[in-house]
């Protein structure tokens, strides 16, 4: 074709708006953070280049390590609960009943509530003195106080996240399930497959795709969780529910340690990237075999 037409680079103009948006929304902010992370900033007129010092300091900081471990435990816990529970809920939704759309709307409700409102709802809901949940549990003779007991704070936090996000997995899984044509179920029925075998060999292969997306979304999102624990417990009692993002906010906004906070951010970002990559490649690779 090039022999007929003069070479033409106009298509690049079409890409330009996207490049500009990505530059301003992602690349420039990220590079600013990288820039901060290698400097000691006393004020904006006196900065010193310190190389990787902040990175070394952050990785050795026990508060970072603790927050990181808490974060990993939290993300794995909610994934281990939300994914099976979401699939179970999706399997329970009738496919062609007149209540189907009502059920779907009800399921979607928690997803529509702003995060700080979710935190506030649970903060009140779980209060031992006036909250429905907290009062009931105490009335049943089980001492429960999420503001004083780290374990109770954790259980409340996990319950809150499960309440908030299981719907997402359930809706995704339901979409996956409805895409399976009925002959597949009928064939399995005639083959004499048990309910577990139907799930394992008919439904799971087709749910895989949506579940990968669901797990990735929940993994990234839970790793960045900030608002809900901040509203619910403020990271306490002590530091028991201080996740990475809250630790970071304290450093950057509370103490104004821009350099260390920037190094922290870069490490944080790379960890999320790494986890998603590990998860995705392991799933996709095992798929190829």
């Amino acid at each position, binding site marked *: 074709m090039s022999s007929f037409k003069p070479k033409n680079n106009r298509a690049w103009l079409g890409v330009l708006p996207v490049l500009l948006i990505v530059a301003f929304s992602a690349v420039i902010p990220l590079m600013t953070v990288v820039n901060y992370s290698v400097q000691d900033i006393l004020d904006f007129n006196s900065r010193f280049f310190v190389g990787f010092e902040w990175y070394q300091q952050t990785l050795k900081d026990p508060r970072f390590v603790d927050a990181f471990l808490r974060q990993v435990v939290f993300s794995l816990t909610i994934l281990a609960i939300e994914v099976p529970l979401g699939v179970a809920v999706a399997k329970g939704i009738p496919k062609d009943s007149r209540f189907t759309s009502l059920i779907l709307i009800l399921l979607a409700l928690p997803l529509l509530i702003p995060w700080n409102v979710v935190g506030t709802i649970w903060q009140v809901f779980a209060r031992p003195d006036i909250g429905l949940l907290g009062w009931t549990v105490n009335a049943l003779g089980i001492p429960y106080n999420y503001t004083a007991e780290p374990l109770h704070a954790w259980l409340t936090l996990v319950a809150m996240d499960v309440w908030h996000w299981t719907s997402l997995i359930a809706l995704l899984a339901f979409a996956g399930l409805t895409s399976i044509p009925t002959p597949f179920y*009928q*064939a399995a*029925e*005639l*083959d004499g497959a048990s309910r577990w075998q139907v799930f394992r*060999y008919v439904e*799971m292969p*087709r749910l895989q795709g949506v579940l990968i997306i669901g797990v990735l979304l929940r993994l990234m999102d839970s790793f960045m969780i900030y608002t809900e624990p901040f509203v619910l417990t403020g990271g306490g009692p002590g530091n028991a529910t201080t996740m990475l993002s809250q630790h970071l906010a304290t450093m950057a906004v509370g103490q104004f340690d821009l350099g260390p906070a920037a190094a922290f951010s870069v490490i944080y970002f790379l960890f999320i990237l790494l986890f998603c990559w590990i998860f995705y490649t392991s799933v996709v690779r095992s798929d190829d075999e």
Partner: protein
Amino acid sequence: MLSVNNVCLIPNEDNVFSHSFARGEICVVLGANQSGKTNLCRLIAGLNTRARGAVHLDDKSLEKLSPRARPVSMVYQAFVNYPNLTVFENIASPLIARKASNEAVSKSVTDLAEKLRIDPLLHRLPSELSGGQQQRVAIARALAQDAQVLLLDEPLVNLDFKLREALEVELRELLRASNTVVIYTSSDPRDAFTHGDQLLLLDKGKKIQAGPPLQVYERPSSPTAMALLADPDINRFYRDGKLCALRPEHIELVGAGPTSGNAVDFHMQVTAYETNGDESFVHGLVEGAEWVLRQRGMLPVNVGQTLQINAALRDVVQF
């Protein structure tokens, strides 16, 4: 013998269906869409359907049995296999579910795979196969159950023309050699002649005629029965107040056809002409009705002209 008695195949239709299917014979159930073919299969298999009625196999009622407990297997229009199991595991799945021994499983899988010529593919996944091969796997899986009733619900519809022809011939040989009740549903009249020992015509949940295919072809009981076996549609006309019909392949241009003594003559106002070189279709108006005639080769016909056509008297079917 499989008998189906007093079955209502289509909800809200009053038509009641009864028929007996013999062992060792392939019965082609021919009907248009929504004629109740799939409901008939589901009813026999015990799957969820709105059709209601009695099903007996050798005088034993199947009604109370779950699909799993029925000696019935089924092949669907869609290529239904387990996506994450290999071809071998797919064919073996009904046997494993019934707890057959390992040697028995691998022997029957190998046998079936050889018969259906998929033995080189045993370690592949269904997604790595062509449509024809996928349907072969599905057929092998159905045969692996060694059921007494085999239901084939339009199994070849989704295959392209050449694959379809190849599989048609093999399927006929495979199915003939058993003592099974084979029910093959289709909407294509050709299937009746390629596969059928018996033909059953179904219209709106009602049995309109049954018998050996050629007998049904020669002596259709009603215009609907005749039309179901014709492709394209039959041509209708009236003589002495009685409805008569002619198949498109039985009409000739005057001069090429039968001599005038044994023939009935018509004039056709040509409205359309189509040909693929091998066959030609001429559409037109005869005595106010839309007709179509089918001829071998190409014809010297122009749209708008009036054709002299005739047909042998013995080909005229009178109702």
